[in-house]
């Protein structure tokens, strides 16, 4: 009897997809911060303010749960601290990630005073660099995780203000978005200068531009031009692949997202709000598709429900033209039942192999 090898080979399957080859099996991609912390007995905060603990907790957890991806470092409220606001790291049992404490820009006057931060010193970036040096030491792809332009702008001035200003002060919003765009590009240039473009894989999360907040017309006017500019300039730096986590309900924005270059191939991950068949329709020919196991089901469902959901995702997307990775639709809930998390690995092992 010939058995297929069941060996942890972090990133190999993903590298195969990125080089245009079909791997032996659908890769399992993480979105695992607080869960990894709890898994190894660290505080959730350490995932965001202690690069070494964050790296090791993820590495050990990925090995245990059979994830094919490699650790990364970041959070959705990125931009606030870097531009002069304050974040609060999670301390109590109900907190999941760093959250807003104060925003750098609370008025138009504040905006006039704001400057592009020094990417070597600002906010969490020194920790992110320390984390990337660990990735380098372990021979892994170098990732830098940032918020998207719109999310960073919202983290500079607060999502409420950004929303109001889109209608009342659109010129100011465009200035904020250009500032966010320039910042993203400066950060990525710093990573490229440090590690070389070939190894750097930016990961950009865009939760704020969801249709739960803004309209597709607002997306077209305020988000799309800056996303496109950012992506085009990142690719000009020599970077080959950008991962966009298109977080939440972006269904009405997808025609615009599909015009954002993401590399060859790019990687797009989705929440449960975007059907995988829809994702393949828009992105399948140029991007690896990843997603979209509903985190609330990982948290609240039975193991059988998680397993069945994973099976359905694999069956829908396994043969996407540029490949598919099974991934949670957003962060795995830190308190998720461990056996539910394991169900993702069981599902790729049972249904993810290619003949």
């Amino acid at each position: 009897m010939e058995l297929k090898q069941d060996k942890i080979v972090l990133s190999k399957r993903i590298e195969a997809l990125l080089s245009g080859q079909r791997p032996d099996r659908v890769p399992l991609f993480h979105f695992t911060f607080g869960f990894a912390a709890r898994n190894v007995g660290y505080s959730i905060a350490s995932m965001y303010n202690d690069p070494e603990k964050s790296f090791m907790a993820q590495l050990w957890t990925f090995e245990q749960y059979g994830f094919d991806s490699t650790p990364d470092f970041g959070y959705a409220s990125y931009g606030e601290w870097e531009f002069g606001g304050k974040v609060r790291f999670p301390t109590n049992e109900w907190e999941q990630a760093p959250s807003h404490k104060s925003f750098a820009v609370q008025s138009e006057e504040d905006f006039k005073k704001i400057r592009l931060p020094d990417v070597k010193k600002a906010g969490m970036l020194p920790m992110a660099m320390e984390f990337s040096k660990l990735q380098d030491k372990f021979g892994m792809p170098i990732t830098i995780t940032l918020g998207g332009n719109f999310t960073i702008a919202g983290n500079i001035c607060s999502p409420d203000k950004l929303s109001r200003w889109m209608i009342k002060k659109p010129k100011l919003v465009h200035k904020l978005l250009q500032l966010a765009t320039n910042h993203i590009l400066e950060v990525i240039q710093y990573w490229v200068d440090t590690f070389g473009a070939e190894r750097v894989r930016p990961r950009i999360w865009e939760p704020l531009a969801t249709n739960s907040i803004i309209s597709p017309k607002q997306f077209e006017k305020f988000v799309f031009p800056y996303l496109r500019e950012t992506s085009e300039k990142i690719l000009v730096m020599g970077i080959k692949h950008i991962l966009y986590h298109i977080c939440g309900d972006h269904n009405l924005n997808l025609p615009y997202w599909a015009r954002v270059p993401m590399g060859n191939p790019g990687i797009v991950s989705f929440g449960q709000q975007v059907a995988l068949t829809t994702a393949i329709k828009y992105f399948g020919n140029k991007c690896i598709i990843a997603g979209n196991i509903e985190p609330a089901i990982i948290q609240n469902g039975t193991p059988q429900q998680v397993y069945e959901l994973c099976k359905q995702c694999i069956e829908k997307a396994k043969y996407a033209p540029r490949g598919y990775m099974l991934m949670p639709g957003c962060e795995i809930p830190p308190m998720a039942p461990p056996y539910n998390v394991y169900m993702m690995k069981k599902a790729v092992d049972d249904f993810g192999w290619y003949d």
Partner: protein
Amino acid sequence: MASRKKTQELLKGLYNAVVFYDEKAAAELSKVALEESIDAYTAITDGLAAGMKKVGELYAAQEYFVPELLLCSDALYAGLGVLRPHIKVKQAKVKAQIVIGVVEGDIHDIGKNLVKVMFDAAGWIVHDLGKDVKLEKFVEEQQRTNSEIVGLSTLMTTSMLAIPKVIKMIRSQSTNVGIMVGGAPLTRDIAKRYGADGYAENAGTAVQEGVRLVEMLKKRKAQK
């Protein structure tokens, strides 16, 4: 006393000020309404609140999104600030009271704020506890105000786990209360499993769900 035509014009103006998010017009027309001796309660219900109802419909139809809703609510509150002190006490039929807040560990409050606006516009008394609210605070506020409804909001999958806990805490102190929940990770099914009486997918459906729970409480009381 304003003529019927003038009254209708002003009510329409208040309605439009909310629908087209003109905060200044909402405040100014509210003052004019008072100067013209238009009843404050009528100006609110048939002007501002009717406008907010339309805004809810536009939101449900995906013609309006959060930026528009926030500005509409600014216009609503600009008008309410002028008119509310002039409501005659016996007219102020309070539909019900709701204690509302984002549970501990979560600072995402846009959704909760929009729900608050809808209840305000519908004539409820809203006790807004804000965001990252300690669980015991929900219990205390419900007890203090004797509110019929408690509305719990969350966006994160961690703070979501506080919901069943706070529901138990509230129920241990009060049996005649309806609890409704909302927020991105929640569904009607999860809400039920957590012990909630109601669930609202978005701000547009929240008041309707609140009214349903109030009716449920009345029936329950009548059966006792």
